[in-house]
């Protein structure tokens, strides 16, 4: 069983981004969670960041600390509705009978 602090622990499973990659990016560039996301792709995978967004935010906050000057894009990772994924076929009026799965 690996330590929970292990640098190789995967934070974003969709894009397979490790704790180490996020910490290194955050400390090297002293940047916001949003910039870490854009640099590493953490939170940009299939699940839309629903699983790791809070973790990425927290790790970046812990690593970078409070900046002297607020970063221009220092808001948390953005997310947009819908909260649940909706397929185009559902939007197009597919019924549960047609959907089956």
């Amino acid at each position, binding site marked *: 069983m690996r330590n929970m602090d292990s640098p190789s622990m995967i934070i974003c*499973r*969709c894009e*397979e981004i490790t704790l180490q990659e996020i910490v290194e990016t955050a400390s090297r560039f002293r940047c916001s969670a949003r910039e870490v996301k854009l640099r590493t792709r953490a939170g940009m995978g*299939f*699940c839309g960041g*629903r*699983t790791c967004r809070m973790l990425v935010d927290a790790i970046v906050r812990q690593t970078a600390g409070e900046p002297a000057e607020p970063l221009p894009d220092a808001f948390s990772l953005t997310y947009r509705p819908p909260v649940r*994924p909706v397929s185009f076929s559902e939007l197009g009026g597919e019924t549960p009978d047609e959907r*089956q*799965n």
Partner: protein
Amino acid sequence: MNGRIDRHPILGPLPPRKQIRFQFDDRTYLGYEGETIAAALLANGVRALRRHEASGTPRGIYCNIGHCFECRVTVDGKDNIRACLTPIRDGMVVRSGRKLPAPFVVGGDSL
């Protein structure tokens, strides 16, 4: 192999259910009506539901509530169906996701 809790100390024995045959990656498995794909496969000892598209590392049940999409499989030709939410049906054909070719990445698999 039966990985089910047949006799729960509080809930009692499992009620009798209809047995269903379904396919996962060309192998036939038995499950029970009402079970999800993920549950039926887990009961059959199958934990890897797909491979990561880029790295090929195995993926299975993670959140099991339809949130994380780690268990997405192809069901009857339809991609990205969550195995943890989808009940099995008789004759259902399920395919796992596999590592994809990356011909434009240095060291990536060719097509």
